[in-house]
């Protein structure tokens, strides 16, 4: 419904100025750390294979493609061609994501550090957030420690039926058939995320079934986990990072696994991005990368409860 004042931005001048300042400070911070800004396409020929990320298709014979859900593949092509450390501060799009913490178009900061591992990159994320919020506290836990602390169970050794049972007890009776990755996400969102302390929380060593594009390894307990981390700020998911997968054979296997999950869920199958695979074949340098939601960062810095009020024109105002 269109009402009279709707042509105006949802935010006033102070928030608009604050947004500009945050974007400027992000650029200052990263360029002073020797990271090069790159502006990569938002309209690409391929969508990602992630089973739970839906891209927005564009029409027209000569422009058929997808609004990009992240700059990752273009950035990795640059890394493989020798760019060194790079960052992108731009827009990303995800179909169907709309709510108090989601908007279909959002501002994403993504950066890569060549020769770094995920722990070095987590420290830099903490540095960036502290640059904008000097008093922020920070805590680092493994995913397993967080699960043990708030749910009293080991997420890696618990059986799928144990996890499904706990999910059912928490009001999700219909989740008895769900995959391990989905049930872990559900339990994390319902039972861990709301109880995390305020400030920054870094969670590393994500379950192997949620590796996305991170490398796998064995933790101290000998469990197979992924070198993926997530960052929470005041209980809100802020960033997601990896010690990046560089092995093209494993990458092809993950694409295939994604596509079989998509097929099982009756979701559109996605054509694999061959140029991205060629880049990996040629050689992606060992690196760590992270993507950070800038609108969510602004929400937390300004204590705004809805993402709509962190940006001038959310989808509801278009």
């Amino acid at each position: 419904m269109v009402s009279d004042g709707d042509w105006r931005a949802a935010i006033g001048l102070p928030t608009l100025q604050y947004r500009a300042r945050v974007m400027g400070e992000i650029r200052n911070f990263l360029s002073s750390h020797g990271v090069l800004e790159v502006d990569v396409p938002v309209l690409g020929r391929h969508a990602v294979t992630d089973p739970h990320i839906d891209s927005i298709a564009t029409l027209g014979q000569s422009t058929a493609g997808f609004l990009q859900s992240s700059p990752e593949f273009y950035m990795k092509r640059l890394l493989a061609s020798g760019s060194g450390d790079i960052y992108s501060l731009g827009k990303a799009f995800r179909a169907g994501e709309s709510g108090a913490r989601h908007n279909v178009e959002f501002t994403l900061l993504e950066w890569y550090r060549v020769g770094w591992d995920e722990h070095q990159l987590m420290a830099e994320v903490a540095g960036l957030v502290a640059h904008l919020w000097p008093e922020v506290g920070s805590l680092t836990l493994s995913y397993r420690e967080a699960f043990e602390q708030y749910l009293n169970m080991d997420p890696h050794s618990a059986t799928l039926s144990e996890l499904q049972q706990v999910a059912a007890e928490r009001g999700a009776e219909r989740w008895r058939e769900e995959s391990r990755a989905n049930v872990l996400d559900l339990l994390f969102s319902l039972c861990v995320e709301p109880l995390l302390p305020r400030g920054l929380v870094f969670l590393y060593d994500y379950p192997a079934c949620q590796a996305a594009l991170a490398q796998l390894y064995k933790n101290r307990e000998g469990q197979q986990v992924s070198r993926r981390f997530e960052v929470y700020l005041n209980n809100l998911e802020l960033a997601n990072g990896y010690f990046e997968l560089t092995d093209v054979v494993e990458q092809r296997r993950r694409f295939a696994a994604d596509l079989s999950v998509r097929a099982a869920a009756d979701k559109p199958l996605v054509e694999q991005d061959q140029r991205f695979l060629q880049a990996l074949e040629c050689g992606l340098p060992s690196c760590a990368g992270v993507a950070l939601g800038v609108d969510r960062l602004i929400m937390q810095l300004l204590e705004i409860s809805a993402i709509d009020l962190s940006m001038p024109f959310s989808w509801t105002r278009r």
Partner: protein
Amino acid sequence: MANYSTNEFRSGLKVMLEREPCSILENEFVKPGKGQAFSRVKLRNLKTGRVLEKTFKSGESLEAADVIDADMQYLYGDGDFWYFMEPQTFEQHQADEKAVGDAVNWLREQDICVVTLYNGAPLSVTPPNHVDLEIVETDPGLRGDTASGGTKPAILTTGAVIKVPLFLEQGEVVRVDTRTGEYLGRAKD
């Protein structure tokens, strides 16, 4: 009946959950960056009034409940049933004790109430937010005591007992908030 998918869930929508009619109170879209999207939904069971919290995968759906809210005039009660009339059609509906519930304390003949019908039968009754009712019994008023802030119990025509200021007398008409049962003031005619 139609089905509603999670992306259509919004506050006030009436759906069937485990064969019971429910009203959606809140729907929160949750999606971990790389994970499955889901909806955390708060619903009120319209029969029991209980509030439930359920989690649905995005794209799941619930059957619509044949529940409508209708403005109706309260006519009278005979001890077993309370009778309401649709002002346009003059159609009458009888509500039992379970449907009337706590509203019984605030029903004044001829007042317009919201009667929630489930499959055509009254499921619940919501009185107006504010009603004017006469005090039929209370301790004698303390004249001039308008400042001490003390209260005393008073019985209203409906049988409801509320707390009123000390200065009020039997026979006076008071305005009550039916959601809280609180005295709001003397009724203004």
